């Protein structure tokens, strides 16, 4: 038994460092892909901005050498018409002219949000079923990104907000 353990120990001592050094035992890592997955009712433009905030935050905390090894991608999750539904509901309650002009300012915090908007958002939240919001087709591209990155020797870090967590978990 001692002899077997001794042989295995010799093998590990000799083989692992050799293989690691040559990148054959463990795949050599060429960098890290930080993938942001947005939450519900985020436009692509908003998701771009969130990704940029993550990027700048990491840039300020890492060394230039560490930061240079990072890539930042966006796995965009759609909102399944929820934003359009909210828009149409508000048009009925508040009138088209009001909503056309103020919709984005309400959502973006530029104008005080009327009670009607809060009420409609609450209605939507209560009837919203997150479990139905991860479509296979949507997920396929995300998985492909993760797979391609990993196969090319990169680590993948998924940073998700809200609905984005369901996609990341499903992937």
């Amino acid at each position, binding site marked *: 038994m001692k002899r077997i353990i001794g042989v295995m120990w010799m093998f590990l001592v000799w083989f692992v460092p050799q293989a690691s050094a040559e990148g054959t035992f463990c795949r050599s890592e060429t960098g890290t892909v930080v993938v942001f997955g947005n939450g519900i009712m985020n*436009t*692509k*433009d*908003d998701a*771009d*901005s969130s*990704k*940029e*905030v993550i*990027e*700048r*935050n990491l*840039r*300020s905390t890492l060394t230039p050498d560490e*930061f*240079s090894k990072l*890539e*930042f*991608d*966006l*796995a*965009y*999750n*759609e*909102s*399944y*018409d929820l*934003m*359009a539904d909210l*828009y149409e509901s508000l*048009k009925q309650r508040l009138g*088209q*002219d*009001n909503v*056309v*002009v*103020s*919709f*984005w*300012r309400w959502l*973006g915090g*530029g*104008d005080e949000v009327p009670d009607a908007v809060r009420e409609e958002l609450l209605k939507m939240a209560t009837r919203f079923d997150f479990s139905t919001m991860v*479509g296979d*087709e*949507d*997920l*396929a*591209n*995300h998985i*492909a*990104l993760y797979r391609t990155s990993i196969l090319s020797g990169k680590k993948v870090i998924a940073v998700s907000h809200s609905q984005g967590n369901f996609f990341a978990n499903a992937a």
Partner: protein
Amino acid sequence: MTEINQPTEKENIVTMKSNWKKLGLALGAGILVLGGACALTSCGGGSSSGSSTPPVVIVPSDPNGENVYQPARQYIEATYQDSAKKRAALFQYAKVVEKALADSGDKQLSIQHAEEAGRASECLTYTLGDDVSAAHASYEMKKDLRSIILNTDERNKAYFAYNDQLGGEVFKGTPNSQIATTCDISPATLPN
């Protein structure tokens, strides 16, 4: 609603004034009032009065803003009079959004425009600085401009349709070493 419209009109007036100065067409106040009244009453057809005074029109001055949706161009020029770099980056973004609205029925074009929009956003943030505050400021600027660009029911619906085309898509970010290439017009070539 009125809270949004009023500042925009004021900004338009500021833009008009600055352009008149640049063009050397600073007419007297009385003439301006008459010209404005004339334009409002549609009497500026030019057939009867024989006057060469043109109707009051807003003439944006930054050539980089050509082909930008007019309300967006006026807003950008009025709001960022002191920075050609910010104007150029926002013009780039506004042009992409305009294309996205026009092609919102086409998935492949929507994806292409979304990639361009991502680059425009990166350009704007790059233009604003290296730190986190630049990313926050970029977000605020895009958000404010978006409320100007999406100023009709049709444009809002097109924007929703454009975003719906993008679900499940993956968008690669520009490596930091190449971030300067995201700008159609290099900020380094602009004066301020």
